[in-house]
């Protein structure tokens, strides 16, 4: 028995190294392209084209690409717009979805089944099938095709909020259902009304789930090119994803600038991801599975 165990361990360690090697090859495909683009963002175009694997040291090193990104392309302004849109999307989504999820999880009422089905079905609509009427509707309200920055950002945020609400309600409902109801009952006995129960008992207890939903909504909105292309018209209104897309058509051959722009968009997100990966992975997965 002992001999078998030892024999097996040896075999495993050889197998283990082969497995680790295979897994590392895929890991290389997800890590190296990012390192590659960051390194090349510090090089002039001709060095990118002649030897993109060299480290940007000595005379190859340049910050010109970044200068261009901040001066000519005004990437900071696009960042600001993106943050404004995506933070408000995340904030409104967790507030509205939290309120609705609480009632759907705790109350029994006649239309509950219907409302729940509305939420579930709401996750199935592809954006392609709603975007034109949304544009027409917001056009009639006068909030698209205007030079007003605030209104344009609003017109991008509103459909994104609606697009994330269904997923958020389902995830939050699941979480609230798992909270023991006794805490709410004792708060009720202490004299809290349901608004107080929601904000003082439910919200603090549901924090991890709120974080998951908020991060997912933020990222989704930040990365969503399609909606931005519909509603952001003038250069001052562009958000970061749209700016990147415009760069390909306008500065298509300025490869150094491209590399710098990609780096500027990707690195902050990756840093945030590394710190919050638990919530982010959970958010992305629960968003999809429940659908």
């Amino acid at each position, binding site marked *: 028995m002992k001999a078998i165990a030892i024999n097996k361990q040896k075999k495993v360690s050889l197998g283990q190294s082969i497995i680790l090697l295979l897994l590392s090859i895929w890991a290389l495909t997800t890590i190296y392209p990012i390192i590659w683009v960051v390194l090349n963002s510090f090089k002039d175009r001709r060095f990118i084209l002649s030897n993109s694997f060299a480290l940007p040291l000595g005379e190859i090193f340049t910050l010109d690409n970044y200068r261009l990104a901040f001066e000519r392309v005004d990437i900071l302004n696009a960042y600001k717009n993106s943050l404004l849109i995506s933070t408000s999307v995340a904030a409104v989504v967790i507030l509205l979805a939290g309120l*609705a999820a609480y009632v759907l999880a705790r109350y029994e009422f006649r239309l509950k089944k219907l409302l729940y089905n509305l939420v579930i079905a709401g996750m199935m609509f592809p954006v*392609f099938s709603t975007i034109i009427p949304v544009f027409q509707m917001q056009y009639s309200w006068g909030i698209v095709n205007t030079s007003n920055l605030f209104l344009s950002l609003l017109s991008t945020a509103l459909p994104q909020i609606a697009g994330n609400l269904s997923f958020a309600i389902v995830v939050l409902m699941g979480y609230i259902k798992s909270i023991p109801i006794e805490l709410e009952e004792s708060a009720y006995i202490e004299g809290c009304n349901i608004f107080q129960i929601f904000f003082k008992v439910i919200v603090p207890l549901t924090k991890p789930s709120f974080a998951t939903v908020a991060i997912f909504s933020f990222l989704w909105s930040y990365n969503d090119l399609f909606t931005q*292309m519909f509603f952001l018209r003038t250069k001052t209104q562009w958000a970061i994803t749209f700016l990147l897309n415009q760069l*390909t058509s306008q500065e298509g051959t300025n490869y150094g600038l491209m590399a710098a722009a990609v780096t500027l968009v990707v690195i902050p997100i990756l840093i945030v991801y590394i710190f919050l990966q638990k919530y982010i992975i959970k958010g992305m997965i629960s968003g999809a599975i429940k659908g």
Partner: protein
Amino acid sequence: MTSHIYKNKKLIIFFLAPAFLFILVFLYYPFIKNIFNSFQEISGLGSASKGWADPWYSNYTMLLKDTNMWVAFRNTLIMLVVTVFGQVGIALLLALLTDRITYGAKFFRIVYFFPIVISATALGLLFNLIFLYDKGMINQIREIFGAAALVDFKSKGIALFTMMAPVMWQYVGFYFIILVTGLNNISSDLYEAAAIDGATSYQQVKFISLPLLRNVTCTCIVLAVTGALKVFDLPWTMFPKGLPNGETWLTGTYMYYQVFNVNDVDYSSAIGVVIVILGVLLSKLVNTIFKEKEF
């Protein structure tokens, strides 16, 4: 079941109204309006309808005769096969391998998920640089290995590959995490019992992991199918307007092109409707093929 504190329902309308107002106004109303639009004649995004199309179904007959639309259908179906077999297949392989290692699993989970967090637009730019004809990363690597001629990855014939490879690559990590979670839920007692009975690793995977992972894999396949219909950002960044020669159209990118470049609003509404129908049919199909089994 309801607690006594939740018997008074007077105030719940304030909790439900804001969210459902949003959902009705920005999802359900536009969805129905879009179906109407597809039977109308509309000259521009900002202009009102000019009435019913003549005949009312004309957009749909036009759609059937549109060769670009058929290219888009074909490519979307190819994309679907690529996502199902490429994404879920590779993810399954990586997940089974990860299940066999004693340490490092967490590292791979974090790293494989990288591309999903990054916007597809940024990845499109990145892959433009990687696949650049004169000379991006791939052509430089080929040169190092002695290839004489450069490959134009955006030319006819190879363009579809260049478009779909990054899309496939991006979401492998997503299904990987789902499958790894599924594998972790399998009790280790089963493997121990099998090992005592003399089962090899291969046999353990074949007779324990795969059968017990069946339902999770089915979930992944359903997600991959619906995901394939939603692909837009990366193809539009790498191959705008169906370049080269309308070879790379997908249903989504063609719909956008019809709105903004052709300005045919009612026709693109019809494409939107067809995307929905396609999605419903395909998920029905997948659900019947991979009917969930109870164990």
